[in-house]
């Protein structure tokens, strides 16, 4: 493993903004360690759980436990924590983020100090753990309960953040008010819990400012990512796996807003200079689902070496334009958060309803295929994460059924060529988010090579 770690080089990024993320993440991990020493409150948290702005407004420092596990994976140093969890009796088939975090925390608690050579100084002991029931993601309920076995004095607070699943014959507006009311109650419960833990009352004016900053950041990210439609595209998914950091871990901070201002400027300049991710852009691909293998982000560079770029991805695109999300006339920041949550998750419902056989996730793919002039789709099935990966193959199958954008000639039964339309080529990679034992670089790159040849073959068959 030491040899493996030594050999692993820093990934090449296309944008300066993405290159600046490493030090930023390192700083906010160090920041949590310093905060703890200074007596400030720190809380274990999950991404996309709506409490970013609430925590920021109360000066509670979030510790993004999925992020720390991802860092261990990216540094190819997760295995020892995964093995420790296994030795505690947890199955390797569970979420490997959770296994990594639990293994690390148990080790730290056993030693009374950070495990040896802890990545970037290690994950701090929290003052509280905030979990959240969310669709199928069981670790969001169970992870911190398991961690509590080793930190019994650290309280866990669980909130419920539901959203209606899609049904093509049911209008979500029928249940909307009920959902929003429930989410508002959950958030008010969270605020009460945090007030108790910190001994200070929520400053709602400050929360309003933070939520307002969050909403402006959403719009700025939307506008910035939209610049990637340019041909050649100035930024790919490899970089987006970096720029997701301020989006998912720093929402409601001026730092996040400023980061995207900088990225926006950088992309506009690149577009003006027609400077793409690669010099000769041949294929534009959509990362259509699945969390990446954090230890193998250089695979994006491998795609690039074949002239393939990723102008868009659905993974970690956790924002929409606030101009397109229904928001009632309210100044209550908790209500605004709840409406924003609901609006985001039902964003594609109405669009999907207009296309027979579609589904919000499929409609999202179609929209991006058209907006970003996509030639093929790549997905990643990470074996240990059921929540975000269940249904990917179904989505591809459904997409192929209802959306065939490529005109080609095929040999008919009478031996004559007939014009028809076919679906977009797709590639499914198989591995994990941080468990490197599931990954083979040779096999993965063999699949990528074959996919590039398939794209080439489809391009040749295309009737213009």
């Amino acid at each position, binding site marked *: 493993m030491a040899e493996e770690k030594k050999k692993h080089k820093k990934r090449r990024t296309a944008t300066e903004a993405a290159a600046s993320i490493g030090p930023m993440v390192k700083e906010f991990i160090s920041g949590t360690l310093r905060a703890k020493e200074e007596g400030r409150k720190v809380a274990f948290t999950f991404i996309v759980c709506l409490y970013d702005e609430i925590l920021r407004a109360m000066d509670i420092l979030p510790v993004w436990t999925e992020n720390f596990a991802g860092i261990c994976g990216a540094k190819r140093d997760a295995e020892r924590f995964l093995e420790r969890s296994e030795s505690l009796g947890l199955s390797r088939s569970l979420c490997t983020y959770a296994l990594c975090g639990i293994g690390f925390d148990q080790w730290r608690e056993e030693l009374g100090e950070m495990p040896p050579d802890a990545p970037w100084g290690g994950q701090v002991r929290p003052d509280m753990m905030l979990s959240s029931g969310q669709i199928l993601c069981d670790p969001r309920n169970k992870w911190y309960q398991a961690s509590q076995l080793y930190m019994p004095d650290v309280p866990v607070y669980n909130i419920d953040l539901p959203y209606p699943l899609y049904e093509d014959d049911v209008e979500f507006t029928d249940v909307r008010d009920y959902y929003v009311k429930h989410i508002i109650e959950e958030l008010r419960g969270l605020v009460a819990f945090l007030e108790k833990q910190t001994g200070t009352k929520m400053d709602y004016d400050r929360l309003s400012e933070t939520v307002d900053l969050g909403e402006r950041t959403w719009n700025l990210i939307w506008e910035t990512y939209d610049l990637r439609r340019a041909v050649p595209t100035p930024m790919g998914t490899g970089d987006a796996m970096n720029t997701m950091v301020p989006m998912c871990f720093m929402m409601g901070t001026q730092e996040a807003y400023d980061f995207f201002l900088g990225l926006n400027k950088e992309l506009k300049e690149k577009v003006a200079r027609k400077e793409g991710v690669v010099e000769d852009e041949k294929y534009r691909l959509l990362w259509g689902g699945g969390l990446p293998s954090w230890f193998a982000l250089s695979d994006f560079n491998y795609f690039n070496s074949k002239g393939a770029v990723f102008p868009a991805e659905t993974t970690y695109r956790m924002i929409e334009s606030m101009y397109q999300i229904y928001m009632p006339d309210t100044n209550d920041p908790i209500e605004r958060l709840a409406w924003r949550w609901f609006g985001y998750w039902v964003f594609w419902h109405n669009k999907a309803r207009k296309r027979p056989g579609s589904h919000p996730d499929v409609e999202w793919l179609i929209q991006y295929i058209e907006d970003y002039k996509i030639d093929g789709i790549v997905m990643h099935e990470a074996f240990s994460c059921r929540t975000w990966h269940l249904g990917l193959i179904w989505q591809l199958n459904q997409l192929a059924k209802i959306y065939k954008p490529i005109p*080609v000639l095929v*040999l008919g039964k009478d031996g004559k060529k007939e014009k028809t339309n076919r679906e977009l080529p*797709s590639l499914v990679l198989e591995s994990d988010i941080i468990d490197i034992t599931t990954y083979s670089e040779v096999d993965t790159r063999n699949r990528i090579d*074959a996919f590039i040849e*398939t794209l080439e073959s489809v391009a040749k068959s295309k009737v213009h």
Partner: protein
Amino acid sequence: MTKVVIMGEEIMSSVIGPTGPEQRRLANNVMKEALNRAGLPFKSISYVVATGYGRINVPFADKQITEITCHARGVASFFPDARTIIDIGGQDSKGIKINNGRPIDFVMNDKCAAGSGRFLEIIADTLGIKIEEMGELALQSKNPAVISNICTIFAEQEVVDKLAEGIPLKNLVAGILESLANRVSRMVKRLKIEREVILTGGVAKNAGMVQALSDKLGYPVSVPPEPLLTGAVGATLLGKEIAQKAKERDESPERKERSLKEIEIL
């Protein structure tokens, strides 16, 4: 297995040799053998395409092309109406959808030995029979055993246990082939199979497997005359096209520096 095909107007020689752990160094040896059989000096070969997992370890190749593209081209040369290829080799299994001899979609299993020919090799060894005998044995069975384990190692143990229970060998072998056919057909069905379906790879020589797969898919499955060579034939045809196109332009095809020596690997 390492295969070489040399082609002029038609196939001039072909070699199928064991790959073994030294394949990365010894691709030159199989090439020499093929040249000997064709009675040709190496310098008379106008273009060399390497394919398969070991393609990057063929130092005398002018171009590397994946087995997906090569299989598509090779199969189409035998079966012009082919639309779906199922290739089950020793290392992996894959499904390829093709149109006019070109790949348009593919799926691969390179993760699990139980979906590859290696599964059959291990079980044949456990049962003390030759792999070539499996097909005929399976076709004699009217009651294939149910092999429920999806891992090669556990399936091997299951076979041993069932043998001890007195289940006839032919039923066990038929059950094993059915198990492999199940796994492969599940994977390939992702492609929305279209006829004509062609089975290639070493496993295609197993008549019992051809039958089991055909039963699972609900389609007849055709097999080329030499199913181990279709990828190599495809590579040769693609190489030939590159050389011919260059000739039409009055140019020489772009070649790499060639040497039929062993490569050095650190």
